[in-house]
């Protein structure tokens, strides 16, 4: 049977193989993606991000178990940073999800960020599509909240959970740094630790500041992932937020803008690649000129663009 059909049937080995093809940018992967695209769009995608060690994987684990009791199929993509020096990575999120490994209705894939300078790689977006096409009801994407990947997650997920932990000074900074906007739900995990309530108040205050009186406000949920505390509430709130998004057509707006983003970035990537490839000699020549200060880089760009036209 061909790989597309097997993926659509939910065969795990084929799903895994196809994700590898996409990661490796093997020949033909675009054609395959084209063929499965029409089967995507069913799954709800949940992004979960937060500082290293804040309990994201533990939360994913517990959340998935609840989704499983509702008989939902869950795909999980756990992203860890690739070392820019060696290209290697240790992908350790799976450790916290060990008890899901043998569950028929769960698929877990660990991915490195690979070339994507701190953000999420193209392959990660495509892996979501593959899982979607394979019949997952939910797809959860875990990324470490350092740098670009937590901003990228918005482009990938219908709902973003922002995980924070009490007693870490940088939470307040994060709030100030403006990453608050990306959260649809705020999770104060490790609320067995001192300062959980204070953090909740702090988050709520910041949210109040940023929103007008009667607009929708993201919920703030206290959890203890290790003890299963607050997880049911969290999953209920996910449903609530989803409902709200669907009522107000926000989900579609979000997805639309996501598609736009995707087309634009595909365009940019391809165009640039094309230009660089086609005009490589010219570019080399211009570099020399810039180096000699005969022209400046802006003019060099204009020269190339006028050629493209």
């Amino acid at each position, binding site marked *: 049977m061909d790989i597309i059909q097997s993926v659509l049937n939910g065969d*795990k*080995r084929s*799903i*895994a*193989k196809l*994700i*590898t093809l996409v*990661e*490796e940018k093997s020949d033909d992967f675009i054609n395959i993606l084209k063929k499965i695209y029409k089967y995507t769009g069913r799954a709800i995608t949940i992004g979960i991000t937060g500082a290293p060690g804040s309990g994201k994987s533990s939360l994913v684990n517990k959340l998935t178990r609840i989704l499983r009791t509702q008989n939902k199929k869950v795909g999980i993509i756990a992203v860890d940073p*690739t*070392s820019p020096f*060696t*290209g*290697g*990575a*240790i*992908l*350790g999120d*799976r*450790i916290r999800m*060990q008890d899901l*490994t*043998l569950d028929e209705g769960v*698929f*877990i*894939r*660990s991915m*490195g960020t*690979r*070339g994507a300078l701190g953000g999420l790689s193209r392959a990660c977006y495509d892996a979501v599509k593959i899982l979607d096409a394979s019949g997952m009801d939910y797809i959860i994407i875990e990324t470490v909240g350092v740098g670009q990947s937590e901003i990228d997650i918005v482009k990938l997920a219908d709902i973003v959970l922002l995980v924070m932990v009490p007693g870490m000074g940088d939470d307040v900074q994060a709030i100030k740094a403006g990453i608050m906007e990306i959260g649809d739900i705020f999770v104060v995990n490790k609320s067995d630790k001192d300062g959980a309530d204070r953090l909740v108040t702090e988050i709520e205050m910041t949210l109040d500041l940023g929103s007008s009186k009667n607009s929708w406000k993201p919920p703030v949920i206290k959890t203890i992932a290790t003890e299963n505390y607050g997880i049911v509430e969290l999953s209920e709130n996910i449903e609530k937020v989803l409902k709200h998004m669907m009522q107000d057509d926000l989900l579609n707006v979000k997805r639309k803008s996501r598609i736009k983003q995707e087309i634009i970035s595909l365009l940019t990537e391809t165009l640039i690649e094309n230009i660089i490839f086609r005009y490589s000699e010219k570019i080399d020549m211009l570099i020399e000129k810039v180096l000699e200060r005969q022209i400046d880089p802006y003019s060099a760009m204009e020269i190339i663009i006028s050629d493209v036209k």
Partner: protein
Amino acid sequence: MSCTKTIRVLIAKPGLDGHDRGAKVIARALRDSGMEVIYTGLRQTPEQIVEAAIQEDVDVIGLSILSGAHNFLFPRVIELLKEKNAQDILVIGGGVIPDEDIPGLKAAGIAEVFTPGTPTSKIIDFIKSHVK
């Protein structure tokens, strides 16, 4: 981006022993040689290891055992891979493994057994030359 494939390796400790110094040193060394390493932690059953290897689509499974349970657990992993039609995954083993057990393990399908004192560079070379 380079065009060579990133090698993916699952490092697992089947059985109950908790000595993971070797497994962790190897994991780091493999990472530093440019591989993606999925470390699954202690007390993994062969079933869990094989399922994780399939979902992660790894090229290699590295098994480490120091408790002496290798003669049961290593072949069991191979058996399950075969059941799942995944025998293309290279399986290597390490730990306290007497020489006299090695031929049997290899016959069962373990590609290579690395005993204590093996330099990590040798393991890296082995993986690089055996993963297509």
